[in-house]
């Protein structure tokens, strides 16, 4: 009886509140020798506690990408908050390579806070960088991610992607007749999720505009698959296709002027490009089999896509002026959903090696050396999306029957996972740099 009531209550809660699917990050695999870094808890001059612990957010950021190990504050010998208080010996004893300290103060004469941070190389006893960032209390998380970006760049030489966001689709099954489909947006680490689109009909393929201000997606709300564009800030949206058959897979060109898409209006799915200013369509492929999953090369001059013209799906590339597509993958039973890394040479894709292995993994194929590296060991992997700095790939998979988001570094050494607290999550799309 108690159980019954409990379930009933849960049902009530789920049916009444449209909550974004909260994602809770878990680090599942790190590198063998992570760089030791001490992030001292930032001091705060105010009396009421702050909503975010900047030091903890920075530590979490750096550990999530796997290359760092943060020293637990309980092991620290001192808690400096500025350069004058730093004794490098305290950190050498603890075998730390780097040290981050900071303090948060009221910004004089305003509601804002100032966050001062300083970053040190312990071995060289040298301050590498220091800054003051000013913002509202509600922006503390953004400020923390920005500090992580700077630290990451100082150490690795690569721009950090901690201020980026992800789009994903969540599906919350209520009953056989009712499932809520949502397109949600969150920080890259799953925090601060919000619902952008909600429907009782399937939603698919969320994609970012290159400036991060708009999304394109596929909605079945009219009972037919149609492409929509929505402004994130205002929620304002417009339907941009209404062709017979499949209208799917919208992807913005890197210059933002065009949308590649799949239309089956001429008999079978083919790749088209729509000029967003004129709505004019250019057909890129013309084949009776299925051509789908377009993605742009970085120079906007060609599109890669999946085609099963030889029987099974393989990845091809075609210039946007049209012409004969070049086949890129050969040594797999099923290779699909290709996306170039920023270097333009490595192709992330979904791969099933042989008919027998029956496992779909995320892999990288180097089109110059023809080398293939399989990055994952789950068996229902799909929808790979690359971080804008090219360091990590987020993808969807199933674990224990649930759809979850996983991330893996491009060298396969680091993994983290974003399971949803409720329902299935899938089709992650990593934003471009947003600042």
């Amino acid at each position, binding site marked *: 009886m108690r159980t019954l009531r409990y379930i009933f209550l849960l049902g009530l809660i789920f049916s009444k509140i449209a909550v974004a699917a909260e994602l809770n990050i878990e680090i599942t695999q790190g590198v063998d020798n992570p760089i030791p870094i001490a992030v001292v808890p930032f001091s705060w001059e105010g009396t009421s506690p702050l909503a975010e612990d900047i030091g903890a957010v920075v530590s979490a950021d750096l550990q999530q990408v796997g290359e760092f190990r943060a020293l637990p504050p309980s092991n620290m010998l001192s808690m400096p908050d500025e350069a004058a208080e730093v004794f490098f010996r305290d950190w050498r004893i603890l075998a730390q390579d780097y040290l981050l300290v900071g303090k948060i103060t009221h910004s004089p004469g305003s509601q804002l806070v100032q966050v001062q941070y300083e970053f040190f190389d312990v071995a060289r006893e040298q301050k590498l960088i220091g800054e003051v960032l000013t913002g509202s209390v509600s922006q503390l998380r953004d400020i923390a991610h920005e500090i992580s970006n700077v630290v990451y760049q100082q150490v690795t030489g690569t721009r950090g992607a901690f201020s980026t966001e992800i789009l994903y689709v969540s599906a919350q099954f209520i009953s056989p007749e009712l499932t809520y489909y949502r397109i949600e947006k969150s920080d890259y680490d799953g925090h601060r999720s919000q619902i952008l689109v909600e429907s009782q009909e399937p939603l698919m393929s969320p994609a970012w505009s290159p400036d991060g201000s708009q999304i394109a997606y596929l909605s079945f709300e009219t009972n037919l*698959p149609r492409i929509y564009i929505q402004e994130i800030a205002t929620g304002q949206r417009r339907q941009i296709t209404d062709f017979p058959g499949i209208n799917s897979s919208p992807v913005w060109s890197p210059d933002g002027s065009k949308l590649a898409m799949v239309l089956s209006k001429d008999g079978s799915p083919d790749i088209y490009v729509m000029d967003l200013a004129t709505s004019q369509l250019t057909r890129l492929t013309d084949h009776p089999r299925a051509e789908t999953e377009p993605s742009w090369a970085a120079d906007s001059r060609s599109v890669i896509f999946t085609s099963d013209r030889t029987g099974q799906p393989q990845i091809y590339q075609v210039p946007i002026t049209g012409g004969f597509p070049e086949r890129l993958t050969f040594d797999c039973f099923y290779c699909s959903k290709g996306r170039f890394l920023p270097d333009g040479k490595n192709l992330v894709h979904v791969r099933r090696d042989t008919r027998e292995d029956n496992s779909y993994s995320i892999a990288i194929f180097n089109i110059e050396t023809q080398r293939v590296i399989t990055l994952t060991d789950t068996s229902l992997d799909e929808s790979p999306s690359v971080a804008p700095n090219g360091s990590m790939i987020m993808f969807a998979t199933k674990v224990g029957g649930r759809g979850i988001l996983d991330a893996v570094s491009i060298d396969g050494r680091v993994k983290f996972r974003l399971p949803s607290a409720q329902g299935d999550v899938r089709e992650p799309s990593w934003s471009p740099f947003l600042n």
Partner: protein
Amino acid sequence: MGTHSMKFFRTTILALSIMGVAACSSSGDEEMAAPVVADTSGIDATTAAAARAEAERLAREREAQQRMEAAALNTTVFYFDFDVSEFMASDRDVLAIHGRNLASNNSRRIRLEGHADERGTREYNLALGERRANSIRDYLVVNGASLSQIETVSYGEERPANTGQTDAAYRLNRRVEIK
């Protein structure tokens, strides 16, 4: 009595009744009819009885046919083998009945919803679902349906009939539904 001899027996009765000399017991049971063939006392009555029996037989056949068509028209989900977009040969007869039904009901409109199992990529599965729906659409058209009566839509792997990760669940999800 085996079906072959039954068929032969029926044919004999039919031939006799056409010649106007057949007789039949009032029971209408064909097996009982043979012994009274020689009775010529009431030709009119026996002819009428034979005609009635024939009419009843045809009615029964028509009923059986209607029941079969109704069952066929109630069959609205068709399953597909893995990686295959052509419907199963065993569904051919049922689909032919759907096609002829559309042909004789010009105002009837249907929607074919194609689905795939969850393996592989979502957008490719959308293409696979459409191809399955089209394979059925084309066969309905071959059987007299008009293209304008049929709308096709693919849901890919977005609307599984069964959310499990077993082969049995996948089999249920690779389907086309007539709606």
